[in-house]
Structures are given as C-alpha cells and as structure tokens.
C-alpha cells in the first residue's frame, strides 16, 4: 500500500494530477446540476405565479 501511494517517488506529481482532475470534474458537474435545478425552480415559480393571478388575458403567456 505504501509503495502504491509512493508512486515510485513521483507521488508529488501523480496524486495532484488525479486529485485536480477529480476536483475540476466534480466541480463542473455540481455547478451544471445546481444551475439546472435553479432554472427548474424559477420556471415552476413563474408558472405558479401565472395561474395564481391571471391578468391581461388578451396577451396571456400560454404560448411562451
């Protein structure tokens, strides 16, 4: 196990490379999903607001 972690003396290069890849890829994934959920919530709120108080029926938002 120790020799695996030591990476033949190159631990200081191999592990940061893998660690950074993990951080960056998880970071992009989390940000993408969080943004998607936020937009979903906004659409839900706007749709709910629309049915709650319908106004200006001639230019209703049904087609948007």
């Amino acid at each position, binding site marked *: 196990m120790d020799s*695996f972690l030591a*990476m*033949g*003396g*190159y631990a200081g*290069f*191999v592990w*940061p*490379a*893998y660690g*950074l*890849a993990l951080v*960056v*890829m998880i*970071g*992009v*994934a989390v*940000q*993408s*999903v969080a*943004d*998607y959920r936020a*937009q*979903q919530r*906004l*659409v839900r709120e*706007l*749709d709910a*607001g*629309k049915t709650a108080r319908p*106004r*200006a029926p*001639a*230019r209703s*938002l049904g*087609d*948007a």
Partner: protein
Amino acid sequence: MAGMSELTASQRFQAFANPARFMALSDRLLPFCTGATALLLAAGLYLSLFASPPDYQQGETVRIMYIHVPSAWLAMFGYMVMAGASAVALVFRHPLADIGAKSAAPIGAAFTFLALVTGSLWGRPMWGTWWVWDARLTSMLILLFLYLGYMALWATIEEPVRAGRAAAVLALVGSINVPIIHYSVVWWNTLHQPASVFRIDGPAIATSMLMPLLIMALGFTLFFMTLLLVRMRAEILRRRVRVLRLARTEG
C-alpha cells in the same frame, strides 16, 4: 392585432418545437449516460492506477497520461463541438445549435485547464520544467483563452440572439487554432512528444497502456456528453424564464 399575436405564437411554437423534443429525449437519455459515465470512469481509474504497468522510461509518472491525454482530446473535441454548433447556428439559425455551443464551452474550458495543469505536473519530472513556450503548450494556452473569451462574450451581451451571433463568429475564427494544436508537434521543434495513438501507421503504444487510455478517454467523452445534455437543458429553461419574465413586464 389578433393576426399579429397569432403569428408570434406560431413563431414561438416553431422556436420551441425542437427544444421541446430535445427536452423529452434528453430526459430519457440522461440516466443511461450518467450510469455509463460512472461505470467507464470507475473502470478507467482502476485500470490506470492499479492494472497497468509503470513505463520502462517514465516509471509511475506515465499514469498522468491517463488523465492528461483524454483531457487534451476532450479540450479539442469540445472546441470542435462548439465551432460546429456555432456554424450551424449562424447558417440555419437553429436555436438548439446556439444552446449547444454555449453549453459546450465551460466543459471544454475545464478540460483545457486540466490538460495544461496535468501536463505541467508530468513535464516537471520528465522534462525538468513546468512550462516551456513551445508551439504545443502555447497553442493549448490560446485554446483556454479562446474558451474564456467565448464565455465572456456570452456573459457581456444581454440579449441571447445577439450574444449568440457574436460568440459564434469568435468560435469560428478561433477554430483555426485546433489544427495548429494537432500539428504543432510536427511543424515545430518541441519537448512534447508526437501523437502516439492517432497515427497513420496505427498506435505506437503498448496494449497494456492503450486499453486504460481508451477506456478513460471513452469515460471522459461520456462525461462531456452527459454534462452537455444537463447544461443544454438548463439553458433551455433559462431562456424560458427570460421569455416568461419579459412577457410579464410587458403585460
């Protein structure tokens, strides 16, 4: 007036017909894409860290290759997706193409960043330097700046149609950099080694290292496609929010 609002309604329907179909399709695809990405990345990590041999010259540092090379491929693949979608957006005005190009940029930029930093971490022990201003490294840095410039352009122009058009032109002009990156190791003297997988005479790399590399590359590609779908869905919803808000302030 009634006729006019009917026209905009049908125009809006046309604009949203394809995104609506995309939403339905991507919703069904996403679980499979996510599962396949997780499986491939897990297998790729196992192969590259445990089940592959150290290189006879480079020792254990060769393991950096399994993330560096796929990152660099995806950095260029992402730019080609972005530039291709931008061309379709400019010529056919298809809303999904615009959305696809915009959504590909941050993922491609992330992989470009990873390729640069993991390359630096590999270069230090193997070349004795973190960085050289040679053609391959410099053109890769320019790729990162192109991505960032493209994203900045989207962020600075408020109106999506105008932002999309300006950004698409930038993406197309910048696409000249992709063949420069690919051939940089052939055209100019460099510390960077030439291509060892995409060669006319076949891959010049041992199977025990080629397999982990290809599995990892496939995993990275699926990761890219999965996130592209998620980001495109988010972008479609963002535009819907914008239209709903505009309509509300008008009403």
